[in-house]
């Protein structure tokens, strides 16, 4: 009798296990419920953090941080020297960043915490450790996986909880519009002049009041010259019939629609629905050549031989060439689309002065060179270019003189048209 029920009970257990399992796989990316649960967990974290620091401690922190700042200005050279050391003691970073709200967290450090909210793995240990050692401020590293999640959490926190956020240009436009960012205190950013002006004054922050650009991405075509038979000169080359079922694409609908429009000689940001629709038609003609569309680790399709040409994000171009130096990069002749990652300080940041210190630290030429060589994005700190190693230079210093356009937010109507054209394209790839 017992045996007979065993099967039924197992099936039930299995259903529960798998349904649970399945959702936990997908929810990271999508469902609102998942976002809510993560929200709750971060909220718990931050309350835990704030509990450890009393108000007095906070004011103390601010003053000490300021002292440290003035100290840093006067002893710039020594600061630069000390940053070199931590590289050897790099492993410590894991401990410090992981210990977030450890029992003896903030009390021991004394100078407070800096809560950085950005993608995973943005900084090398040398930067995080170097900053912590120089200023005695503990860095708490908090991650998001999409810009949208970031805005969601930041608006739930009403611009508080985080001291420094690094995210993409278009979302920062929304952040500023929602009043969730505060103006930078440019006087405290002694290295402000090091920023490459090419990346300043952009649509999301026309007067550079709120943001510091920290890396630019220019998606490019990478191909395997041993396999590709046609000549790759630009976006239009991807349409070549010899590339049938061999092209890997990143999954950002605005970027892919954008390059199609560039290939047609139109702007990436057109709001003219007729143009978007004709771009959609042109994009559908690319469908037979598409092997895979995916947004993360797209370069793997190229490296595994699954695809012979790929349109990749900058960090992926960097990773692909690091893995296989025989691959060739094409800077498309039709013009480049690019995006900027920028740092901003939320409106209610608990420790804005530490955030300023960190931004200034990052703008230090040698630190910036370290940062960009690790990150693999185009260097937005002009003064750092000379410190970047020769090998990395071709990939980290943006090609000069090319026509460049940023992808910007468009009207709802245009956005609907972009979405529709993109879905039609994906369905045509099947």
């Amino acid at each position, binding site marked *: 009798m017992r045996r007979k029920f065993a099967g*039924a009970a197992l099936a039930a257990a*299995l259903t529960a*296990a798998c349904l649970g399992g*399945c959702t936990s796989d997908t929810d990271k990316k999508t469902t*609102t419920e998942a976002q809510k649960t993560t929200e709750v967990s971060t909220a718990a974290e931050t309350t835990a953090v704030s509990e450890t620091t009393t108000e007095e401690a906070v004011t103390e922190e601010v003053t000490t941080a300021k002292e440290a700042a003035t100290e840093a200005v006067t002893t710039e050279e020594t600061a630069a020297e000390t940053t070199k050391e931590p590289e050897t003691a790099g492993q410590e970073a894991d401990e410090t960043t992981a210990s977030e709200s450890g029992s003896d967290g903030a009390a021991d450090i004394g100078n407070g915490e800096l809560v950085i909210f950005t993608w995973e793995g943005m900084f090398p240990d040398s930067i995080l450790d170097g900053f912590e050692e120089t200023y005695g401020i503990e860095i708490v590293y908090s991650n998001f996986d999409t810009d949208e999640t970031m805005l969601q959490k930041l*608006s739930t926190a009403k611009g508080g909880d985080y001291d420094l956020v690094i995210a993409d240009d278009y979302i920062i436009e929304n952040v500023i519009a929602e009043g969730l960012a505060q103006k930078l205190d440019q006087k405290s950013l002694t290295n402000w002049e090091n920023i490459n002006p090419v990346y300043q004054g952009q649509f999301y922050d026309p007067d550079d009041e709120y943001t510091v650009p920290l890396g630019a991405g220019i998606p490019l075509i990478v191909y395997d010259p041993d396999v590709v038979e046609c000549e790759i000169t630009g976006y239009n080359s991807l349409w070549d019939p010899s590339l049938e079922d061999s092209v890997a694409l990143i*999954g950002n609908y605005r970027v892919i629609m954008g390059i199609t429009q560039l290939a047609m000689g139109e702007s990436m940001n057109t709001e003219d629905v007729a143009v978007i629709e004709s771009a959609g038609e042109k994009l559908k003609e690319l469908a037979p050549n598409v092997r895979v*569309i995916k947004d993360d680790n797209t370069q793997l399709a190229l490296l595994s031989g699954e695809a012979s040409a790929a349109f990749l994000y900058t960090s992926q171009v960097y990773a692909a060439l690091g893995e296989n130096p025989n691959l060739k990069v094409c800077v498309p002749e039709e013009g480049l689309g690019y995006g900027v990652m920028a740092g901003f300080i939320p409106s209610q940041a608990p420790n804005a002065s530490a955030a300023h210190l960190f931004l200034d630290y990052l703008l230090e030429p040698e630190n910036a060179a370290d940062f960009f060589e690790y990150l693999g994005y185009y260097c937005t700190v002009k003064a750092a270019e000379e410190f970047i190693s020769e090998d990395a230079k071709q990939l980290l210093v943006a090609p000069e003189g090319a026509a460049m356009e940023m992808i910007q937010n468009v*009207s*709802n109507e245009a956005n609907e048209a972009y979405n529709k054209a993109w879905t039609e394209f994906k369905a045509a790839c099947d």
Partner: protein
Amino acid sequence: MRSKKRSRVWLAALPLYLFTILFVAGPLIYMVVLSFMSKSDSWGIEAVFTLRNYERIGEPVYRECFVQSLKLAFTTTFLTGLIGYPFGYFMAKLSPSKKRLLLLLIMIPFWTSSLIRLYGWMIILQAKGVLYQTIRFLGFEIKPLKLLYSYPAVVVGMVYALLPFMMLAVYSSVDKMDWNLVEAARDLGASAAKAFWTVTFRLTLPGLLSGVILTFVPSMGLFFIADILGGNKIVLVGSLIQDQLTRGADWPFAAALSVVLMTITTLLLILYRRIANTGELEGIV
């Protein structure tokens, strides 16, 4: 006396009611309301009533996504039935110790995340992956495979992920069956095939049908398999909803899509119950 007992039962059930209201009914209502709102021009949602979201679903491209999802769900369910039924049937006829072993073998893969198992399939199907290497090893000269990122690869992944549900549902109903009835049929002159068809199959049909439900419903929503093994080229409603929630930042449209998807699934379930004339799911109750 009686009323006291009742109130105690009611109290015991209270947490469940609260849970259901908070985490099932609440979000559902939120979703339905959301589906009638508009996306704001910059970010988020505006409380402006609109039917536009539903109107958009009527556009051919989005209708096609529903057709695609249904097609994949039916294909998956059919194939899992075809493979799962015989498996469950023969498993139930094994000796108890072998049964236990088989059950364990079915369970073991669930100890790892389904995502990791999918990546396993990627490694097998890749252009120069395990399958390719094996064929080469056997002495055949072939070009790198183009199996990954195709429709068949997606179907393989779906069937693989959902097969255990079908197998176990069929197994439990075959296991419970009274074999004397089959013997009686044979004694009365029915051939083995006829006895199977008129007795065994009829008696185990509830198991098969609950297996169908257990595979069909999840396969309507399992989009990450199509994303990973299909290279994002098969647009299912699930991935469309995900797109709208993340990149597209169009939550009301995503909510409208979800409402329609749930409605279709519910209607199919009601239809199924009418046809199968069964209220309970064999194998899980």
